[in-house]
């Protein structure tokens, strides 16, 4: 049974051209889904549609059979750009989603600090976003996306601004967290190996269409071994070919 179903949707930004057309997509509960594809192919658009931020012109988006018409606020989000509030400290930025729901408890604060130290930026807790490096800002955004222990998590290139090492650490942390909390994830990335390492399902897009759906059956828990193992490489190559094959 699929959790989130996108059926035959169409979307354009009012420019006459449809960015997505006749696109269908499914997400299974508790699974990790990745979207890959050339820059500008419509990944971000699809993610925004899936999370209810924008509405399709045609077709339907259903969560557990119920039409999605507005953002599912119990989900977690990490946008392509960090989008932090400059006038709040790092920890307050992380706690923002909670503070919009209810009073912040000590537990929330502790969890936020835990996430920040997972992200390796616990020492910047009281800094303002303007005082952070690009990668540090994007890690604050990731912590903010995770603060609510969401059942549904949308992430748009969350690790793009990070070095390989930090990135791998965070991938493993993310996988652990998601497994623990049975999170359903929609993840956009340009790093094919990252997608394969993390995902249960990978969809490759091209010019507004999904041109490949790939199930990843690598054993869990995944670790450094998985990462440099042959199976991962093979799948990576296949996906890579799909992406570049999409080159028309």
């Amino acid at each position, binding site marked *: 049974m699929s959790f989130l179903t996108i059926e035959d949707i169409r979307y354009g930004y009012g420019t006459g051209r449809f960015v997505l057309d006749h696109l269908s997509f499914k997400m299974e509960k508790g699974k990790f889904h990745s979207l890959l594809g050339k820059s500008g192919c419509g990944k971000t658009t699809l993610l925004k549609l899936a999370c209810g931020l924008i509405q399709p012109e045609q077709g339907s988006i259903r969560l557990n059979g119920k039409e999605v018409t507005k*953002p599912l606020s119990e989900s977690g989000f990490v946008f392509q750009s960090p989008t932090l*509030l400059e006038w709040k400290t790092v920890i307050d930025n992380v706690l923002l989603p909670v*503070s919009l729901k209810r009073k912040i408890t000590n537990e929330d604060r502790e969890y936020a600090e835990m996430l920040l130290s997972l992200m390796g930026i616990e020492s910047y807790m009281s800094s303002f976003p*303007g005082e952070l490096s690009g990668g540090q800002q994007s890690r604050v955004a990731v912590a903010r996306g995770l603060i609510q222990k969401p059942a549904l998590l949308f992430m748009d290139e969350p690790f793009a601004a990070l070095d390989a090492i930090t990135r791998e650490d965070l991938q493993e942390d993310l996988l652990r967290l998601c497994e623990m909390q049975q999170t359903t994830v929609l993840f956009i990335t340009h790093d094919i190996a990252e997608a394969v390492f993390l995902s249960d399902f990978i969809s490759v897009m091209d010019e507004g269409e999904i041109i490949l759906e790939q199930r990843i059956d690598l054993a869990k828990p995944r670790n450094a071994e998985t990462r440099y193992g042959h199976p991962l490489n093979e799948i990576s190559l296949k996906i890579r070919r799909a992406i570049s094959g999409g080159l028309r």
Partner: protein
Amino acid sequence: MRKIPIYSFLLFLILLLLWEWTARGMSELVLPAPSVIGETLYSGLISGYFNAHIVQTSVEVLIGLLLGSLLGILFGILMGEFESLRKLLFPYVIASQAVPKLALAPLFILWFGFGMTSKIIITTLICFFPLLENTVTAIQYTDHKKLELFRVLGASRWQTLLQLKLPAGLPGIMAGFRVASVLAVVGAVVGEFIGGSQGLGALIIASQGMMDTPLMFSVLILLTALGTFLYFIIELIEKRVLKPYVKEKKR
């Protein structure tokens, strides 16, 4: 850069001398010399002659500024949030601004009496507009990425307003506040022009009636001091409130 106070003082001195020199060749009734004004001002301050007037006007200015700013921000929020409300109300807002208060003064007196109320209302009306416009603009030009963030976090309209639009628009709103603070002084004085027996505006009228131009200029100087003081206070508040912005945006 450290020499600014000196230059500032020099400029002031030069202007003063120029004024003194111009005034020498003129009737005191038209343009009194700064020395004469200084004397009047000094003796008035020493003798306590100005005190009651200063207090009265300051109270009107402060209450009017407070009310006007609150209303201005409130209506700015409403009219910024609800396009329809904006269309509905803006003719009345413009009417309230384009109509000279001085012309309505007799009516204000009829409606609100001779006391402080009518002056405060005039001040309120005058302060209101710059804050309204700046708030509307601040609210309408919020960064759309941050708006998306708040939408996605399920923030209510109210939360988006309080935690995003207003803080993000604070610099613009504070600019409106600075304008309002100085206009408030004019508002109170204009209110006192008609039907006030106390206050710096009433003193201006009285001094004009007696053709005591040095007294009038003393009052004008007091008004400038009041305006500068308010402006200065608001700048101080601004510097504190806007610190995080400055961190990010100024260097």
